[in-house]
């Protein structure tokens, strides 16, 4: 009898606590700016910007640093939730939960150009405007801005760099990090279009490593086994480049097989210094983050918003590694 009474009392207490708290609101979160009225810059102080990157890696950490620094100037705080894997199923619940906290704006790097569209549409309908950073959606109309490196140009630059390294002849392989992520697709396409202009280069095709360095290493080993005369590799992001360099090192082919990587994390700079990688195409994630915050501020205060911004890339080689502006381009692991 006592156990039952105790349980019933507990339940009553919990129910009362919930109902007290629930007195707050029962509707969808209200947007921070109604149509027609916009805020002044001073109003922004104390508001929150939500940031959901694709996965935990130095590229997104550098972007987070850029966002936090830029938001700080307006007195805004940034809440970041990082998916454990570069997967739509993992990122989706984070989007929904963050929108429930009603940030002033949501900056997101969608892990899939299609799968995140329903959740982001819900976000916009709930009054939280969306900005796309780095990766993009197939239908960008729901976001007020889309900021990324011009990945197609970056892929083309990688093709030119690799062609130069291998003497414009030989077999080349691309390791694409994720089919369906706009950045991976764009870099791959940019590379393929540009490499086709070199008549003596044989393009072996693209292999997908699902953002897993171990898979990238396995792909490189397998390709070397099938094509011992492999001349060059283009790795389309940080994890692909790390894994591919490991694969080359394990096969004893580092230096012989030339590699151009995308992204410039600390690990990749080490690989560049060791000679496992010959060139890195570095993006400017801090600048992407900064631009995103500025566009969000413009949107919230009723200013002009640029719908699409392409930031540029920097090519890092062993030669220019110690220049000051190149050192700035290296990604951070912490802010």
């Amino acid at each position, binding site marked *: 009898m006592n156990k*039952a009474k105790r349980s019933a009392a*507990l339940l009553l207490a919990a129910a009362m606590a*919930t109902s007290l708290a629930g007195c*707050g609101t029962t509707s969808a979160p209200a947007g921070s700016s109604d149509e027609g009225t916009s805020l002044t810059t001073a109003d922004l102080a104390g508001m929150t910007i939500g940031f959901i990157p694709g996965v935990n890696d130095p590229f997104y950490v550098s972007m987070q640093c850029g966002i936090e620094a830029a938001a700080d100037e307006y007195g805004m705080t940034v809440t970041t939730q990082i998916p454990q894997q570069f997967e*739509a*199923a993992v990122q989706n619940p984070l989007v929904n939960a963050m929108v*429930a906290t009603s940030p002033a704006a949501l900056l997101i790097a969608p892990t*899939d150009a299609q799968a995140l569209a329903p959740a982001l549409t819900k976000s916009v309908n709930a009054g939280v405007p969306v900005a796309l950073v780095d990766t993009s959606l197939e239908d960008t109309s729901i976001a007020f801005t889309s900021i990324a490196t011009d990945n197609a140009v970056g892929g083309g630059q990688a093709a030119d760099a690799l062609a130069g390294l291998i003497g414009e002849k030989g077999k080349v392989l691309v390791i694409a990090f994720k*089919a369906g992520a706009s950045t991976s697709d764009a870099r791959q396409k940019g590379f393929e279009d540009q490499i086709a202009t070199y008549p003596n280069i044989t393009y072996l095709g693209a292999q997908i490593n699902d953002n897993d360095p171990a898979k990238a290493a396995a792909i490189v080993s397998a390709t070397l086994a099938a094509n011992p005369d492999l001349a060059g590799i283009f790795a389309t992001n940080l994890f692909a480049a790390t894994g591919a360099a490991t694969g080359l090192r394990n096969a004893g082919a580092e230096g012989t097989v030339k590699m151009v990587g995308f992204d410039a994390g600390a690990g990749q700079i080490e690989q560049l210094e060791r000679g496992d990688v010959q060139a890195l195409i570095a993006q400017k994630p801090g600048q992407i983050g900064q631009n995103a915050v500025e566009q969000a501020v413009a949107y919230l205060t009723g200013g002009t918003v640029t719908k699409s911004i392409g930031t540029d890339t920097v090519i890092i080689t062993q030669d220019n590694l110690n220049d000051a502006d190149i050192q700035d381009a290296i990604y951070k692991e912490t802010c």
Partner: protein
Amino acid sequence: MSTSSTSTNETPSTAVVGHDDLYRQPKLLMSVIKSDTFRLFLALVALIAIFSVLRPAAFPTVYNSLNILSDAAILLVLAVGATFVIITAGIDLSVGGVLVFSGVVSAMVMAGIGDGTPLTLFIGLIVALLAGTAWGMLNGFLVAKARIPALIVTLATMGAALGTSLLITNGIDVRNVPFSLVETVGSGTWAGVPVLVWIAMTVAVIFGIVLSQTRFGRHTYAIGSNAEALRRTGVNTSAHLIKVYALAGMLAGLAGYLSTARFATTTMGGHSTDNLTTITAVVIGGASLFGGRGLMIGTVIGVFIPVVLQNGFVVLNISPYWQQIAVGAVLLGAVYLDQMRRRSRDR
């Protein structure tokens, strides 16, 4: 045998041993409140209360509640199937792989037919269910007839199902899913509640009734409790095991269809830990891994606890990595409680 609880002053029958009270059935409300499942429910309510008090504007809203329900829906469908398997003292690690395979096959069929008519969507559903059931029957056959431990069998089929999906798609997710599927099933709502949630709840209710009220359910409990005894009463336990694993496979197939509908694409890389999340949910819900115990309502609560934890942590802006630690702790607690119960019963 048991006397009815009467309020007259009759002398109890001499055929009855002991006092009248011993034979009185406890009132339903009392037995509910004293049960372990109720304590689990209180734990869930306490969690919700804590998050609501900490973030009253964000957490206890209709919008967020629907988020939580949507996030839990697909996991719930998987967990319903896993409940049956775990009650038979078995285990099914292949749910993630079967989910992916069914989603892929159904997406390819629907994309192949091309138009987005309701008939196409229905055909896709049937394909997904059949694909899942096929893998489930394979699991059941290997467990029941070939007598290979379920852990090994389902581990193997998980790899085989996932590998087959990657093979037939060349590793690239199927993205040309008919948009009408996403609109109606994936993102659609009915009476304000997402369709996904209605489907998951219907599945839980139907199979909860099957588990507790039908002979199929009773045999499931019996196999988990003492399979040999059930076999000697003349029931074909092998056939029953095959049916149980087939059911789990079918529900994994349904989950694959729902996942494709929700994300507008198959997500082949995103389901590698689904099996462990499902087992965690079922065990937190009170089912014993040694078989013979478990309630569907417990599974439903067990599904919501990790989902509410994750949602609450994001709303509170706590790193989601803490959620994994929290769920691990809850799981340990649940298994420990189960061990205590077993020990006190065996004494």
